[in-house]
């Protein structure tokens, strides 16, 4: 009986502690920032630097479209100061949590809300257009500043550095795009509408935008016909994908396979700019 009372007291204490304001928690006086998946995590840590603790909820490498947080993750999330997500149905699970979060006083920022270039089909992978990625970083800086006004100047400074980098990235893509001989990319996952719109490319997706189902035989035949008629040299797959579809098409048509990363997650902890430059190299190989 005594043990039960002690346990109950400990549980009550733990609950009280979890309600305490951020500054008194966990030994860290930095703001606690949670992000919905790797791309948001990476953009957020670029802005946050060493002034905030940034955590990623959907583990790198897990498909963000289908992720569901566990109960423990939800509990931690309600204790955060800021929650950063991309939106546009990229992470459907956030729909049901943002209301809960605003009740517990968490600042939730949907970073795709004010991006300048939205594609016709509302492709949620908006960050693949550097202009959009910068707009997302702006939204992140705003949210961090709202939670932590003292460090507002620091966040603004880091945002400025990112502005230069995204502008250079955009310039490098534009320069390369002018020399592309072909403008069609065949991708396993239809995730590159933002990239295509920004640089005048056309994507032919094998799987749909949600990357879930295998193509029908009709679609497979169309793609193989297209590759053979137009002499396509390379098709694109994603890192971590073990789909046999791309291998089948490559074996049937004799074309090569290159990696184009939609930057949903990175197993090797690469940052946004590294991945975007790797993508640019792959595009140059395939299209020039």
């Amino acid at each position: 009986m005594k043990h039960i009372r002690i346990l109950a007291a400990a549980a009550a204490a733990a609950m009280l502690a979890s309600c305490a304001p951020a500054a008194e928690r966990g030994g860290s006086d930095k703001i606690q920032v949670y992000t919905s998946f790797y791309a948001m995590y990476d953009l957020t840590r670029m802005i946050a630097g060493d002034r905030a603790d940034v955590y990623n909820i959907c583990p790198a490498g897990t498909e963000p479209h289908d992720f569901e947080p566990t109960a423990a993750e939800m509990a931690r999330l309600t204790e955060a100061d800021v929650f950063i997500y991309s939106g546009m149905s990229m992470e459907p699970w956030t729909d049901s949590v943002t209301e809960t979060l605003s009740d517990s006083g968490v600042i939730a920022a949907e970073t795709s809300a004010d991006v300048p270039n939205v594609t016709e089909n509302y492709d949620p992978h908006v960050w693949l257009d550097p202009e959009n990625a910068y707009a997302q970083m702006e939204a992140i800086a705003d949210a961090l500043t709202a939670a932590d006004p003292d460090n507002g100047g620091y966040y603004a400074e880091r945002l400025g550095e990112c502005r230069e980098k995204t502008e250079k990235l955009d310039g490098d893509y534009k320069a390369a795009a002018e020399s592309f001989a072909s403008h069609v990319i065949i991708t396993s996952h239809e995730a590159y509408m933002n990239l295509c719109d920004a640089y005048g490319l056309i994507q032919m997706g094998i799987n749909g935008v949600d990357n879930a189902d295998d193509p029908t035989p009709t679609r497979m035949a169309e793609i193989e016909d297209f590759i053979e008629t137009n002499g396509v040299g390379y098709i694109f797959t994603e890192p971590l994908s073990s789909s046999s579809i791309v291998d089948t098409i490559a074996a049937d048509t004799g074309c090569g396979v290159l990696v184009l990363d939609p930057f949903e997650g990175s197993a090797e902890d690469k940052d946004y700019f590294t991945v975007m430059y790797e993508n640019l190299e792959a595009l140059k190989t395939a299209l020039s």
Partner: protein
Amino acid sequence: MDNIFAYSFMLKAFAAAVLIAAAAPCIGLPIVLKRFSAIGDAASHSALGGIAFGLLIGINPIIGAVLFSVAAVFGIEGLRKRFGSYSEIATVIVMSAGIGLTAVLSGFIKNGSANISSFMFGSIVAISDFELILTVILCAVIIGVTLLLYKEIFAITFDEEAAGLCGIPVKAVNFVLMLLTALTVSVASRIVGALMISSLLVIPTAAAMLVSGSYRGTLARSIVFAELFTISGLFISYYFDLRPGGTIVLIGTAVLAAAALLKKRK
């Protein structure tokens, strides 16, 4: 686009479909007659758990599927005896365990959803050479064993006691039958999908039972039906831009419904 046989992925799809359609009823008929038609479902859901397990620890997912579905069918055999006349509960219990395992294990896999869903509904348009060879071997084993043990399987599906009295090793034959069921489900999950294979085990047999009288006749007709469903399913899915696995199953259920209606009129 005009010539369906101009694509090597379609040729492989047809080869695998024809083989599986010949083999599936050989297992399907005995399990249906043994009032055991849900075992395919239980085994296939457990196979999905095994696929998730295989992807997780980095072995070929088909090996994971074989391990889990073999464990499932023997788990069912073990549990069945404890429930007496409610033995079908065992199937549901094992199926539930399989679904639970799949849900939990798939949460740990990197990029898991895309992979798991290709096993649920099959990737008949993306069969690798290795998978085709595996299918050939499996189907040869199934058809071979069924022919070899034709009389024994026939006897135990109707009356295990009488079969035992006649000197047939009932336990051993059941063991072989269960093992073949698990193997069929595991290998076919990659090709036609784990959620589809149990339909291929049961629907052609059910349709054949409506139109034939003898065991031999039912077996022969169920193979004819299975071939009809899969081949026409592939043609239709190709020309009408549909998903092949689901198309095959829907054609099967439609033919079954038609056969049932015709039978009633007589």
